[in-house]
């Protein structure tokens, strides 16, 4: 299983409960927002580029930065390295993989990831993906 979901496919998550968060247009391209997802803070990012075939993709990870100990990751900068997308914390710039939650600078740190998709122009979130279940 991977955590990857795109605008075109909701993969094998179709049987789960999806929660609508906001309109896709509420998230500027290649930036993030923070969602209140059943009391948890989730950072959702809207990826869009030529590399990605000019198709919108959404990715979701926990909003909490375990290094800075603050809820800030939605306000970070999206980076691309060899086609892997990371979110760089706005505090001390550690990068976390948007697909797996793995920290690039410290392999012992993994942040939670969430299933996210776009359906009818709405961004939706689904249950947290356990960090241990992540295929790296």
């Amino acid at each position, binding site marked *: 299983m991977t955590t990857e979901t795109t605008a075109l496919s909701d993969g094998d998550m179709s049987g789960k409960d999806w929660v609508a968060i906001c309109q896709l247009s*509420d998230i500027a391209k290649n930036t993030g927002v923070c969602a209140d997802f059943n009391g948890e*803070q989730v950072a959702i990012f809207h990826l869009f580029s030529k590399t990605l075939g000019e198709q919108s993709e959404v990715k979701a990870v926990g909003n909490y930065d375990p290094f*800075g100990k603050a809820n800030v990751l939605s*306000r970070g*900068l*999206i*980076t691309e390295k060899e086609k892997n997308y990371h979110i760089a914390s*706005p505090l001390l710039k550690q990068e976390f993989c948007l697909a797996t939650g793995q920290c690039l600078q410290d392999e012992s740190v993994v942040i939670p990831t969430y299933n996210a998709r776009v359906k009818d122009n709405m961004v939706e979130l689904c249950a947290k993906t356990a960090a241990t279940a992540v295929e790296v």
Partner: protein
Amino acid sequence: MSKQRIVVVGNGMVGHHFIDQLTNNHSDQFQVVTFAEEKQLAYDRVMLTSYFSGNDLSLTTPEAYDEKGVEYHINEKVTGINRQEKTIVTESGKEVAYDKLVLSTGSIPFVPPVPGKEQEDIHVYRTIDDLDDIAFSAKSSKVGVVIGGGLLGLEAANAIKQLGLETHVVEFAPRLMAVQLDQEGGDLLRNKISELGVTVHTEKNTQEIVQGENCRYRMNFADGTFLETDVIVFSAGIRPQDHLARVSDLSLGERGGIAIDDHCVTSDPDIYAIGECALWDNKIFGLIAPGYAMAKVAVSHLTSQEKSEAKTFKGADMSTKLKLLGVDVASIGDAHAQTPDAQCFSFVDSAAGIYKKVVVSSDGKKLLGAVLVGETSDYGQWLQLVVNDMALTRPAEYLLLPELDDEGASESGVDALPCSAQICSCYDVTKETISKAVADGAHDIAALKSCTQAGTGCGGCVPLLTQIQNSELAKLGVSIDDSLCRHFAYSRSELFDIIRVKNIRTFDALIAECGSGDGCEVCKPAAASMFASLWNEHVLDEELVSLQDTNDNFLANMQKDGTYSIVPRVPGGEITPEQLIAIGEIAKEYKLYTKITGGQRIDLFGAQLAQLPVIWKKMVDVGLETGHAYGKSLRTVKSCVGSTWCRYGVQDSAAMAILVEQRYRGVRSPHKVKMAVSGCARECAEAQSKDFGVIATDKGWNLYVGGNGGMRPRHADLFASDLDDATLIRYIDIIFMFYVRTAQRLQRTSVWLENLEGGLAYLQDVVINDKLSINDELLLQMEHLVDTYQCEWKATLDDPQKLKRFNHFINSDKLDDNVIFTTVRDQIQPASKAEEAELV
């Protein structure tokens, strides 16, 4: 053990170098006393001409000497030595005992015995006092003549020209720089100098100086011709200043000069002589590098337990490279082909004004000497070939044909140098030392200069230094690739040009033009900064918002807990009571922590993302605007109160600071830029620690550039003096935009200036003389930025689309419940984790 007392007579460049070398390494063993005949401590005589451009030539300060425990007496001439008692006496009657005496009395200008030479507006050219005298005479003059077309004479001509006089050079020999150049090189130099408006008269023997008809004086020449002039400067050579040694019965040369041995010891074992006053092997060395070498030899002898192990002076290479009246000139080794059977090859490009001659051994295998006029980039390489007696790898004529010289050849040239090769002759730095410094981490020129001192004297070796550094880095496997990041194979300044020329306004377009992938934390903010520097569109516009770094991203400074601080602009630090009260009311309403910043404004901490727009609405309503404390852009212009209130102020510094701050507010640059304006020389605004510092003079403003506080403090360099308001602004405009265009990402002006090839002098050439012919364009660019300024917060408040991002949650109005404050000294503060646990 009591300290030995060393008395140093003469505080010129060499005397100072001796003191520096001695006190840096052996301060515990010696007590140093020095006497300066001049009214100030050592200064850079080599750069004397730049005194008129306002350069501070000082090599040291009274404070620096105090700190080292060096006792100094300025304006105090030493008149006698009592060698039996081991004391010296001064003009004012002081008597000081010495254990060892060092004579570094330098030289005196030679004035030929021409009748009429002793008159009011006839000068010599050696000291700052001489320059002041020349400048004083120039005020009431139109024409100036320099007698002597040697190296110093041409320097003096440059000084005369800078003072705005019609300038003539009169030379006895058939060519200029007769010692260093051959006839052809001299002729070319003459042509170039004539083009610059300096008239050259060769083969003129001045017979007498009499009263003139149209000018103050008339010089009559032996050939019956004459020249009228108001000012005359003699620069007909130097003579060793050996008077003191002469009256003390030390051995002298037949034609003067204090005789020394290989350890720089005179005929009295307790007295050393170094520099231009010393005569070694019947030769006087009138250049700075041999003087420094002698200083080192004397220190070595003084401090060595085993005198036989001390360094020795072995003569010096008299090769020189310099810029005379803007013309590059160099002479290496046997420039006149005096070696038996030497062969010469030359290359002349009269259109470009380039002359090169090489002198090679009869078998063509070794380079013996060279002359370069108009273009001297080969100097470093060739000097090494000569000094190290290296075999040429190709026929000598190839040296003259750079276009046939395929790339890599010059690299192998550097690699072929022996480890012992002296690269910097001013500070005696070898290739080995440089290689080691590079291996130890000095990966840019500024770092290499600061840890080895190489290149910090005359600067002539910097190109060679750069080549060695690059070659060493390549060997270490360190890439000298200056690509911005993995997404762009271009440096920042190259990208800047691409963006400018191709009018690129979005990151997607930039990637499509010259990059790959989707960008990263390096290139995105760099691109955002360049777009802003060129086009000045709102940083939160749809196409730009995803590129912004942490603070620009929400137009506020993020703090450790994810809250923000807010800094309204307070131009020049001037603020009305009403504005102060308004800021206080807002801080009170939103319970913000308030602190006065170092830049004379007020920082309000602890605002949550969602609170930023409401707080800014109130700020804008009372007429406050964004302070760009979050941007890599102009921060503040600090000022003192200036002449309006201060008893000492000579200009209205507060008004100037406000003018400057309002002009450059919001201008984004490679890194943050700080400025300050002081109303007098007391410098209360600390302008010399800023990127741009302005200090009032009674005639206008002095402009300083490249200062820095923070982690790596640097005093700013004086860029220009006594500027009027318009020129000051014009210079700042050009320097600022030139920095924006050419600096590396996140490079402050201090490091930028240090890495700029040619340094301050080059920057002055670019800005003041428009060397690159880009000033009009730079001024237009700055004008565009000034004209398109907007308060980013006011614009944001007017745009609902932009405001949408200013909520902690996209799907709720709640605030972040992880932001927890405690109260300390009556204000909020982020709670520690332990405090949080207690408070929640």
